[in-house]
């Protein structure tokens, strides 16, 4: 934790190495977190980028607390952007799923695999949206963000016990939803 405190201090001083480290260590996790919440890989890329832009713009105002990882702050920024995105999206006309998937090229060398992958993500994202907000957050933080229960608890402001219980109920519900198709 001492290391992270030092990392944050250096990042606040606009230290290049520190900012690079934060970017590299968290980019993929934040990306997966967003993908799971919105189900659109291309859109998630742009949003992930925006999360880091916002974070670095505001890094001077970030206050490090012992035991709370910096990533929890990044997830909060990501969460706010997702809420904003979904609110705006609800006002826009929707694109049919097939069309969305066809245009959602992730640059894979195997187009069929890519479509299958995108369908699986869309299915998972769609099922996740039927969970409660807290369950969604646990699944996103644990499986996309790869946070431990303790870290997820910090991000969510809940006890570890509560997060474990939410994790259990979320997986049970997710299983049912995925089975129902």
């Amino acid at each position, binding site marked *: 934790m001492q290391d992270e405190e030092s990392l944050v201090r250096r990042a606040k001083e606009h230290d*290049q*190495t520190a*900012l690079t480290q934060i970017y590299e260590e968290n980019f993929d996790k934040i*990306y997966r977190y967003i993908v799971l919440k919105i189900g659109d890989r291309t859109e998630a*890329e742009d949003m992930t*980028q925006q999360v880091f832009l916002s974070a*670095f713009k505001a890094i001077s105002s970030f206050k490090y607390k012992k035991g709370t990882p910096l990533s929890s702050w990044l997830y909060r920024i990501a969460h706010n952007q997702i809420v904003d995105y979904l609110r705006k999206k609800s006002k826009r006309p929707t694109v049919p799923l097939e069309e969305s998937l066809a245009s959602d090229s992730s640059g894979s060398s195997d187009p069929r695999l890519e479509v299958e992958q995108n369908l699986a993500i869309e299915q998972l994202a769609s099922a996740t949206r039927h969970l409660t907000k807290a369950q969604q957050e646990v699944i996103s933080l644990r499986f996309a963000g*790869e946070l431990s229960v303790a870290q997820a608890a910090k991000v969510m402001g809940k006890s570890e016990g509560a997060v*474990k219980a939410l*994790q259990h109920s979320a997986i049970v519900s997710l299983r049912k939803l995925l089975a129902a198709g």
Partner: protein
Amino acid sequence: MNREKEFDNILDECLERILARGETVEQCLARYPELAAELEPLLQTALSTKETLAIKPRPEFRERARYQLRSALQEMEEKRQRRFAFFNWQPQWVTAVAAVLILLLASSGTVAAAGNSMPDGTLYPVKLATEQVRLVLTPSTLGKAELYAKLADKRVTEIIKMADKGKLEQMERTTQRLNVQLVAMASLVGAPEEDTAVLTAPAPSAAPQEAAAPPVTEEPPEEEKIGIFLAPAPPSAAKEVPAVAEEAQEARPGAALGPPPHAGKEPPKKKAEVQLAPVQPVPEEAPAIPLAPSVVPEEAPAPQPVPSESAEPDIDKGKVDKRAELMVLVARNAVKHPEALREVLQKVPESARPSLLRAIAASDAEYEKILEALRVRERGKD
């Protein structure tokens, strides 16, 4: 209730083993055979969720994203610099309000107490506001310039104190204030403006960036100005870009002590000279120079002799004396400040060095310009 909690714990333990340590579902079930029927479907769901989410952004997007981020950070840094510069050009009413407040506060002795406060002190903003008011209330250009020279001296003392205390954030802010005040002083005494780019003294640039770097000009390349850490610009997907972490390693702030790598190109000469300029060989006793132009050490930029009393009317004599005093003060600062800042440089961690290097470069360059401008004025007078 307890049973549920226990199951939650066991489920979490199995998830940790499977997701983080790479155990199989079967291995985990073997640990809890009595719960296997209940655990197995949940673990399978979790595993399949994890597998579905084993995705990464497209490599070409990562490359583009790094480039965009670098540009955005560069813009932010420039804005930050401008904000500090803006401090000197704030609207008149801000100064007027500050003046009233300071007059009110003065009666309670706050201003006096603030005079010695440091950047980490609660009264420091009062000290800064007091300085602004003093500047506004000083009518003559030479008087203002002299005040700036004294303020610069205070800033350097504050930088040293903050570095000693390990308060690097405050130290960095103070270096920026110092830079702004030096530029303001230089423009007051009529120094040419075109060289103020030195304020954004080069930070280290990553070696791989150089291949794609624009031609070297007097103005430091954008990458060098703030030392942005990310991969070079080429948005082409085909181009192989080294890992950012590696670049960043090469771009560590400490590298700023040596000439920046320019991939076969000459580094911008002006910058290198400014940044690496040795302290002028002025004797130790420089700080003790009496305020008389005739005894300024030769090594320091020496003011011209003051014309004799009989040759000048009183009013001109006053100006000449003032200018001579200013030259001595500036000459002393020109020696003292870069040297003191270089000493601080040895004490601070690498992360704090770029801002100090910028301050050293600024004091080297700006004092030289100020002295030159004063000499030109002096010659004009002659």
